[in-house]
């Protein structure tokens, strides 16, 4: 059962409920569903945590997920893992779950709507200067726009906007194209082939969630790590003198 018709490009156009000026479309409803699922699931699982040798299987699952995300962040950021962890992990888990549930009939991924992905990308757009300023201070962060010379300032600004657009359109395009491909295949070869594409879609959803989180982390790391690099160089320069 597909609730998004083939000529509708995003689930925003599917109105589930309208009352006065309040309009609930499919994107909104399924975003709330995913949010509720994540919040309630996390609360229920973390309600009775144990540090014993035996732990519940749900706590084990959560530990594996959190540990993997932490190690991935540590590989990129090298330090300050816990500062970035809440933001990156929330992005990853939200996108992951909204992508993975596409195999449920009647569900349409909120990430296959440009509004959701644009909101997520704008969050990254504002998070990058926030982390950069809180790490290096305003002056050091703004200096980054004028490196190596002041001629590069417009290119840096353009890069900020274009990568935000790219983040949004990439996630939206992948999910939307996958939905449309399945809808077209259902019309052409209805029985077996759409199932194979659905399985491929799970992989695509996982990879896209991973890529979105990794790119957000890389952008944040590039805004925060410039200062450290100069520090490292200073240390390297002074080391031979000390020894």
């Amino acid at each position, binding site marked *: 059962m597909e609730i998004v018709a083939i*000529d509708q490009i995003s689930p925003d156009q599917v109105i589930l409920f309208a009352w006065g000026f309040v309009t609930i479309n499919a994107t909104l409803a399924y975003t709330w569903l995913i949010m509720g699922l994540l919040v309630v699931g996390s609360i229920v699982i973390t309600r009775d945590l144990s540090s014993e040798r035996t732990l519940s299987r749900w706590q084990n699952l959560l530990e594996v997920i959190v540990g993997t995300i932490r190690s991935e962040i540590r*590989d990129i950021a090298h330090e300050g893992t816990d500062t970035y962890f809440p933001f990156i992990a929330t992005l990853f888990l939200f996108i992951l779950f909204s992508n993975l549930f596409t195999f449920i009939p009647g569900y349409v991924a909120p990430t296959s709507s440009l509004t959701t992905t644009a909101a997520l990308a704008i969050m990254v757009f504002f998070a990058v200067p926030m982390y950069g300023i809180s790490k290096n201070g305003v002056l050091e962060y703004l200096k980054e726009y004028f490196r190596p010379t002041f001629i590069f300032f417009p290119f840096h600004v353009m890069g900020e906007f274009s990568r935000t657009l790219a983040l949004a*359109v*990439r996630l939206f*395009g992948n999910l939307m*194209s996958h939905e449309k491909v399945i809808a077209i295949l259902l019309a052409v070869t209805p029985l077996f082939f759409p199932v194979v594409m659905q399985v491929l879609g799970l992989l695509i959803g996982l*990879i896209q969630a991973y*890529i979105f989180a*990794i*790119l957000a982390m890389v952008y944040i790391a590039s805004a925060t790590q410039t200062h450290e690099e100069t520090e490292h160089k200073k240390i390297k320069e002074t080391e031979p003198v000390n020894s």
Partner: protein
Amino acid sequence: MDSVSIVAMASIITAGICMGIGAIGPGLGQGRAVQGALNSIAQQPDERNSLTRTLFVGLAMIESIAIYCFVISMILVFANPFWAYVIKKAGG
């Protein structure tokens, strides 16, 4: 031919051409990227994790070009802004 069918024809043909030509470059680029990554993994299997991560990020960057083309074709076919304009002109 009236303007409605000209716009319809141009939209459909352009959508096909956009997707077809737009897939060539990313296809070649992704092939080269995967080739380079496989060579590097074969030479240095220890670095597999960071190579794979960089490969995925790079593939996503390359792939986004094809995705832009796809989004534009989709807009041309399903949500064509010129289409509504022409229909309004023809109707009114």
